[in-house]
Structure formats: structure tokens, C-alpha cells
């Protein structure tokens, strides 16, 4: 799962003077300047409604900023073509706050989705996906549909889907919000392993325990402004 040689000097996520507003409303993100280099690990904190999810959405190209520049892997969002955007998204693993699982697909097929999209064959998928399913403790739910799973189980499916394709960036919005403390730690250790292998990780969380325990730099959002701690 090694990322090979990683250039840790150049930022892979760069936001310059970014502002974001929805439908002409007030700015939810203001003058954001941020550079994240390859292999870094950040926690993103802030009160509810501070703009954490909006910032993460900018990072995985789900939104365009109202002003300023967003560059991912050195590619300027303003000049990105749809196919280029898709290629970049395949390098980003994303755990949505509300999971965004496909209800009509089984746990196996939900987790396999990024691999299928990347063109991996079924042999590869059937070798690797069950291993990860077992690791996240859902071995007995491999053919279950998400609606039959608890919130915590759905969250683990979402995490497995985000990491299955060995992403260069992992963005997670409250990934441990619905799991017990043991599972939260286990998942954090998974993120840590990925980080050691070169994956850049940004995790939005409310959990001060996790922040204290893992001691990674913290990005803090307050009233739309970003500070680095």
C-alpha cells in the first residue's frame, strides 16, 4: 500500500483567500488560507455550524469556492475538466458525516464501488474487499443492505469504502461519531497506519479525547475563520 516516493515539500491541498457562501447567503467560510503537504495528519475542529463540512467539501471538490483559489495536487479547480476532477477524486477517500451509502447495494458492493470505478477486476475485488470487511468487524454483514445496519456499522462501511482504494488523501467528517470508544480507537489506528504509509489525513471531529490522545496538529474553525493550533 506504499505511495512510493512522496514529495512532502509541495502542498497537495492549497486554499488561498477562499470564501464560500451558499445561494448568495452570508459567507460560511472567510479568507481561508491553508496548505497541507503530503503525509500530514490534521484534526479539524469547531462548533456545529462553524463550517467544518463546508471546508471538507471544498477539499474533495464537492463545492466551488465563491472566491479565492482551491488547488488539489497542484491542479487549479477553476481550470479542472470533469474527467480530471474524477481522476483527482479517485485519489481522495471521503467519509461523509451522513455516510452516503448506496441503499440498494450490499456492504460488499458499497465498499467495492471505488475499486469498480477505478477499473479493478472482480478477482481483485473479491480478494481484497472481504479482508477489509472482516477487519472493520462486518464479516457477518457482507451481503446486508445498509438500511439493515446500525449507525455505527454504516459508519464503518463508509470508512472501509473510503480507504479501500488506498487513497492519497483521506478526508473524514466525524468518522468516529457513531461508534463506541474501542472501535473509535481501532479506526484511528487504521488512519494512523494509512498515514504512516503516506496518506494525508484530515479528520473533522468533536472528540477532545482523540485529539489529546493522538496529538496531531489541529485546524480550528470559528465563525468561518480558520486557525492552526
Amino acid at each position, binding site marked *: 500500500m506504499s505511495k512510493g516516493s512522496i514529495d512532502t515539500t509541495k502542498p497537495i491541498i492549497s486554499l488561498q483567500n477562499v470564501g464560500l457562501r451558499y445561494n448568495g447567503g452570508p459567507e460560511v467560510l472567510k479568507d481561508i488560507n491553508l496548505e497541507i503537504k503530503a503525509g500530514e495528519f490534521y484534526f479539524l475542529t469547531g462548533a456545529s455550524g462553524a463550517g467544518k463540512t463546508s471546508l471538507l467539501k471544498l477539499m474533495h471538490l464537492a463545492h466551488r469556492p465563491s472566491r479565492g483559489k482551491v488547488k488539489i495536487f497542484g491542479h487549479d479547480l477553476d481550470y479542472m475538466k470533469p474527467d480530471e476532477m474524477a481522476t483527482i*477524486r479517485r485519489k481522495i477517500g471521503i467519509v461523509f458525516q451522513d455516510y452516503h451509502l448506496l441503499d440498494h*447495494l450490499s456492504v460488499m458492493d458499497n465498499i467495492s464501488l471505488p475499486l469498480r470505478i*477505478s477499473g479493478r477486476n472482480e478477482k481483485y475485488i473479491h480478494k481484497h474487499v472481504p479482508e477489509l470487511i472482516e477487519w472493520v468487524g462486518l464479516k457477518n454483514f457482507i451481503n446486508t443492505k445498509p438500511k439493515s445496519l446500525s449507525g455505527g456499522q454504516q459508519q464503518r462501511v463508509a470508512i472501509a469504502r473510503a480507504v479501500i482504494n488506498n487513497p492519497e488523501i483521506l478526508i473524514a467528517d466525524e468518522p468516529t461519531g457513531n461508534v463506541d470508544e474501542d472501535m473509535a480507537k481501532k479506526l484511528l489506528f487504521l488512519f494512523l497506519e494509512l498515514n504512516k504509509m503516506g496518506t494525508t489525513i484530515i479528520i473533522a471531529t468533536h472528540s477532545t479525547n482523540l485529539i489529546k490522545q493522538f496529538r496531531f496538529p489541529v485546524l480550528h474553525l470559528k465563525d468561518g475563520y480558520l486557525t492552526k493550533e
Partner: protein
Amino acid sequence: MFKTDIAFKTDINKGFLPFITAFMVFLASITFATALIGNNLANDWNTHMSNNITIQVLPDMKSKNPQKEIEERIKNITKILQQTPGIKSHYAMNLKETVELLKPWIGDFINNEIDIPLPRIITVETSNIIPVNMRALNDEIKNYSSLIKLETYETWMYEFKKTLSAVQTLLGIIIILILSTTAITISYATKSGLNINKKVINIMHMVGATNKYITNQFSRQMMKLSISGGIVGYMFSCFTIFLIKTFSKDLNDGIIANFQFSSYIYLYILIIPILAGIISKTSATLTIKKELKKMV
């Protein structure tokens, strides 16, 4: 079976699309079959009639013995025909046959002995290889007697073909309209399918699916649905043609003696479901591409 990530199982199109395609394919196939049958009929008649001439020998009403004179004229015409290159065979109907032929119009009261001057007919079959110089033959007959008329079917066939051609053009337009309606229906069904699956498509975009990936899944599904509908429509049209063929056997006398069609017609109309499949895929692909551009 291809693996799909889109929720087709809950899609309303799954029932609607095959039904509408089946109906459209049925209509287009029957229309196409009608055009083909018309064409075969025209070709059969043309082949049959272009090798036939009728010569009418009229009686001279002023003559004291018209019947005898007619016999004399028939003999002379027969000589002319024997000397004309390209005449394969000829047959002069005798008086008894003429009386039989005219009975439906004149009635039973006439008989061979009644001295009513009746016109007589000579049927002539021409060669397929040596063409007959009709103008020269007509001139020769006219020079011999003004009471002899040579009739070919050219004018009648020309009018028939003209009418048939107009009907076939109309049928062609109907087929184009049906297929266009199919394309429009597929386009709207695709749009509705995209709307139903908007959330799924959004998630797929977020995990890195290209528009091409989504388009392929959608258009393959649309093609699969329309082909399944197309097959049903095709089978229904084959069954309908089979029924028409079976019941039309009773009509195989008289003017529509050639109203027969070969079994190849079932193969020819197979082009309609294939065409419907291609149109469906093209229409779905174009619609998805257009709609996805708005979504990215």
C-alpha cells in the same frame, strides 16, 4: 450480466420502457412488413404482366357474317404473331370460351349458336430474353385492321407503381415517426431515471466516477430494457404476420392471387428491433451526457 451500481431495480422505467418499446417495435414492424408485402406484390405482378399482351379482335357490326370474319382475322393475326420475334406463345380463345368468360355479365341465355357478334381475345406471352418491338407490332396490326386492339399492362402498372410508391413513402414516414417517438420516449425515460438516481449519481461522482462510467451503465441498461421490449414487439409482429398469412390463404384467388409473402419477411423485419436498440442506446447516451454535464 454486467455489474451495475445504479438502482435500476427500483426504477419505474423498468416496466414502462420495455412496454413502450415493444409497442413501438410492433407498430414499426407491421408497417415495414406492409411496405415489403406491397413491394413483393408489385414485383410479382410486374414480372407476370410485363410478359403478357392481350389482343382484342372486335366484330364488324356492319358485316353480314361478323363471326366468320373474326375467325379470319384471328388466323391472320396468328400469322403475324408467329413471324414476330420475341413472341413465346399465343392463344386465341374460341367462341365457347369467350361465351363462358362473358356469362357473368351477359347471362346464361347466350349460347354458341346465337349469332351475337362477340369480341375475341388472343393472349400472348412474350419472351424474357428477346424483347418484342411493341411499336412495330402495333403498327402492323393497325395496318391490317382497325378492329384489332393491342393492349399491354404498362400504363396500368405505371399507375399502380406510382400509387404503391406513394403508399410506401407514407409508410416510410410512419416508421420514421414511430422510431423518432421511441427516441424521444427513451430520452424522457432516461431523464426520469437520472432524476430518480440523482443521489446515487452524486455519490458516484464523489467517489471518482467519470461521466463516461455513469453513461455506460445507464445506456447499457436502457439498451437492455429496450431490446427486451423490442424482442417482445418483434415476436408479436411475427405472430400477427403469421395470422394474416394463414387467413389470407382463402383470398389466394383472383386479383390477389399473388398475395403471398416469403418467410424471409420475418428476417427482414428483424431490422426494426435492432434499429430500436441502436436508437435507444444513442438517445439514452446523448441525454445522459447532456444531463450529467449539468450535474458535475
